[in-house]
């Protein structure tokens, strides 16, 4: 949906007198809307400039995008043909951190809480290592630490009547942000040694091999069944399509 948004925004800003060029991840959307200048790229959603930590490749994409601004007439929708370098993801990658067996019973909240906390503890050294290597973390958007964010998810499963921990955020928003921090903690932890897993390998690992995914399953179910319409409405964005019922 982002390609839809930037395609529309390009028209609004061009009308204001700016020379615009977009990166289009979904060419179909850009073709339907029409833009002054667009570069359709063959990259996965989330990576409009192709490859993390590959400055030369990113620059190549950005230069082609900017060069469209020199087109004498338009509209122009060009294709960027090169695939991003794969960064040599390990073919048989497995998470280097040994986790306890996945706790499958999502109705046993005490057991699920214990399994979740055990995973968070087990992943902590790797998470801290990744944070130090990158000099940053994306965990914290909820303004809670990982213990508070993860606990909020299960507290909501236990009682949908809980209050938002942040008076500035409605409960639906606090829950969504906590869920993003929760998932980010896991995916950052597995990159302690660098990006040796592909995005799909990281996602497969989280959704198939962690008790964290079971927490997300219980949380999404509680959101789907909530009486607060904002929470029900938010629930679609909790997990990638097809990962949870």
């Amino acid at each position, binding site marked *: 949906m982002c*390609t839809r948004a*930037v395609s529309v925004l390009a028209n*609004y800003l061009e009308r204001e007198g700016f020379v615009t060029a977009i990166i289009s991840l979904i060419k179909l959307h850009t073709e339907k809307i029409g833009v002054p200048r667009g570069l*359709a790229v063959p990259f996965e959603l989330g*990576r409009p400039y192709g490859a993390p930590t590959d400055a030369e490749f990113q620059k190549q994409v950005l230069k082609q995008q900017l060069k469209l601004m*020199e087109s004498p007439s338009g509209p122009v929708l060009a294709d960027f043909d090169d695939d991003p370098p794969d960064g040599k993801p390990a073919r048989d990658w497995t998470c280097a951190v040994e986790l306890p067996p996945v706790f499958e019973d999502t109705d046993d909240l005490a057991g699920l809480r214990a399994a979740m906390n055990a995973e968070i503890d087990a992943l902590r050294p790797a998470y801290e290592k990744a944070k130090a290597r990158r000099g940053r973390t994306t965990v914290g*958007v909820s303004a809670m630490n990982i213990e508070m964010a993860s606990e909020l998810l299960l507290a909501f499963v236990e009682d949908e009547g809980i209050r938002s921990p942040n008076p500035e955020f409605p409960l639906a928003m606090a829950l969504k942000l906590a869920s993003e921090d929760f998932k980010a903690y896991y995916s950052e932890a597995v990159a302690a040694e660098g990006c040796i897993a592909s995005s799909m390998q990281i996602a497969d690992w989280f959704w198939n091999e962690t008790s964290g995914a079971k927490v997300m399953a219980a949380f999404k179910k509680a959101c789907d069944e909530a009486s607060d319409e904002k929470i029900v409405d938010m629930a679609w964005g909790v997990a990638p399509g097809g990962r949870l019922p």
Partner: protein
Amino acid sequence: MVRMDALAPAMAQRMTDLVMPEVESGAWSEAKPLGEMRVAIVSSAGLHLKTDRPFFRGDADYRVIPSDTDGADLFMSHVSSNYDRSGFQEDINVSFPIDRLRELADEGFIGSVAKNHISFMGATDPTGMERNAKEVAAILKEDNVDAVALSGV
């Protein structure tokens, strides 16, 4: 285009079926030579400073990201989960190419980098962004920006 066969079938179908708004699309601004243009980034990746209010479902407003923002102070609160975030976790430039833009200015490929950049959050009806786009235009004009590189996730 992202390969539809790389997406989950339900996601690919959703992308194919998504209704596109009708927008007047004939505008065309004349460009100066690239080496003379001041360029801003406008993203729909739901980016913002740590100190900003995160985005939430339905938000059609925007956040201002100063050019000298440290990557450690940049957060993403896009409401969709249907895209990869591990790339951004590793390197902000994969969706917000601020370092690359700065390098291109240093090389003379573009004239200069804008003082401020902008992010919207793309998982909302973009026609609701029109009034906000006018505000963004005013911010960029104040900084003598000529050109805008847009991208989303």
